[in-house]
């Protein structure tokens, strides 16, 4: 009884139930044909969502107003620069990866410098900075689409027993993030800052150091995602990050992390990422046009948030 109640109280539950329901609905419509492939695709695309959402989750947990809107631009910049530097040569992969991560870290440092030194609200700071990163990516890449090195492309599309390798990798990454969030001084610090920045400061937490680390971590993960996504999709495109702006935030919130900060949940990220992908797949399967698909996606996202939020205002 109490175990059941505890299960129902888990913030990640709704996202997973939603993903399951949507998958079953798709499978029922197609009489189960191809539902294995759908799941495999969901794991691959979900993995990309989860990589950026992990970073976004840490940022959002820092408290109201903290959100990173530069993720798409950072992905594009890291993807284009690393692909062009590698030039398709397999031996350059470690360098390309290091470069993508370094670009991400630099983006994070820039974001935080604007937030901290210029006292710009994070939304505007990351937004204005993202314009500059996007321009840098356009300027660097000149509209060329450089093919990724073959081993990288193989790596991102590899499967073990039908499960995409990249999904396994990101599951491990999520586990690490979960431990970092719940068991380390840093993770606890992030949560404490989100609950009450002043109290956290008085408790001796180095608030600004943790905020800086969080923005850098988020941008580095975006850089990693840009690198892997460019490898997966046969090269970096200038609009490759576009859909990750909305989905990174949506995945975090649907996954049960509080938008007001101070409460984060890693397992929900995977549930929400699968849910979002499967939802679009389901609407595609049902033959919905682009317009209807967007309307339903939007309404369902809002519906899930209304259902998951539960608490009505106590006034």
């Amino acid at each position: 009884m109490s175990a059941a109640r505890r299960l129902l109280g888990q913030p990640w539950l709704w996202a997973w139930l939603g993903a399951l329901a949507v998958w079953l609905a798709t499978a029922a419509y197609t009489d189960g044909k191809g539902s294995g492939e759908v799941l495999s695709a969901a794991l691959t695309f979900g993995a990309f969502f989860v990589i950026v959402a992990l970073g976004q989750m840490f940022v959002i947990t820092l408290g109201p107003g903290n959100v990173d809107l530069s993720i798409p631009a950072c992905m594009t910049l890291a993807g284009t620069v690393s692909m062009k530097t590698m030039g398709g040569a397999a031996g350059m992969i470690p360098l390309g990866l290091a470069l993508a991560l370094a670009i991400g870290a630099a983006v994070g440092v820039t974001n935080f410098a604007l937030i901290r030194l210029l006292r710009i609200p994070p939304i505007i700071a990351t937004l204005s900075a993202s314009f500059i990163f996007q321009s840098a990516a356009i300027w660097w890449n000149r509209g060329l689409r450089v093919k990724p090195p073959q081993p990288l492309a193989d790596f991102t599309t590899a499967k073990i027993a039908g499960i995409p390798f990249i999904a396994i990798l990101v599951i491990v990454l999520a586990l690490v993030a979960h431990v970092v969030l719940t068991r380390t001084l840093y993770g606890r610090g992030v949560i404490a800052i989100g609950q009450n920045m002043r109290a956290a400061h008085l408790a001796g937490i180095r608030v600004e150091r943790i905020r800086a680390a969080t923005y850098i971590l988020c941008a580095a993960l975006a850089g990693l995602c840009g690198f892997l996504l460019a490898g997966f999709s046969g090269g970096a495109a200038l609009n490759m990050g576009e859909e990750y702006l909305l989905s990174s935030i949506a995945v975090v919130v649907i996954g049960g992390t509080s938008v007001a900060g101070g409460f984060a949940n890693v397992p929900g990220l995977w549930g929400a990422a699968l849910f979002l992908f499967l939802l679009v797949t389901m609407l595609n399967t049902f033959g919905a046009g682009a317009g209807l698909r967007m309307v339903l996606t939007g309404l369902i996202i809002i519906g899930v948030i209304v259902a998951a939020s539960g608490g009505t205002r106590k006034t």
Partner: protein
Amino acid sequence: MSGPVSPRLLRSLLPPLSLAAILIAIFYLQPRTMSYFGLNLLLNLAVPIALATIAQMFILCVNELDLSIGGFVSLVACITATWLHDTPLLGVAALAGLIAAYAGLGALIHLRNLPSIVVTLGMSFVWLGLAVLVLPTPGGKAPDYIRALMTLKPALVPFPIIAAVGLALVVHLFIMRSAWGTVLRGAGGNPRSLERAGWSLLRIKMTMFALAGFFGVLSGMALVGLTTSADANIALRYTLLSIAGVILGGGEFVGGRISPIGAVIGAMTLALAGSFLSFLRLNPDWQIGAQGAILIIVLALRVLISRAETRT
């Protein structure tokens, strides 16, 4: 910083000074714009942006954020170019329904205590999807009277300037000077005390969202009046422009600190920044980046001034 000008004054002067600086730069680079015709051309597209910025301002005033205004303006533009042109009655009903939907959003956000960022993010999908359904391919036609209004050529002063000044003054008088406006702003400053005083926060939020919807509708109609036809992606960048415009104009994210005059000026500054950069013959690759840089510079100036303000 104990100059002849007080930091407080400097702070309120920053938005008009930025606008003046960018106008002077444009005049210097391209003297031909310093004419009735040139100004008309320069500032035309600033009118719908200013209207969308005012819409965003109402939302920011009650400590929320609207990430769907771009999609919303696009949808209005699509409806204006199709239904309002072909079957005016249906068009008017649809637009009125959209304003009601905005009020409903305000109620939903307030009653369920939802984060507005996420709800409006979801709504941006809905508006865009509806826009695609209404107008699957770019096209449509602006109703003649809107077209006529937006291409008015009054004597002496170009229409966009009259429209911008009129808009700023009307909204300023309403929200900054009237008793009603003070209550509405109070909902952003100190909601709890307002509630203790017997006002319904629900009604205030719904009013503010409805106002935002109303100005969003005006923005979409004005945009179609200028472009004569619409497409579903026509105004997506308005979301970011409107937020940036409010902030450039001296508004704050929390606390009900807003300035309608500043918001209109901020919107015009941003609209002009685009023209300025193209007159500079800047490498087109860097156009968006330069807009971001302008935003950062103005905000940095504001921080410097605020610091001086706290010191005195």
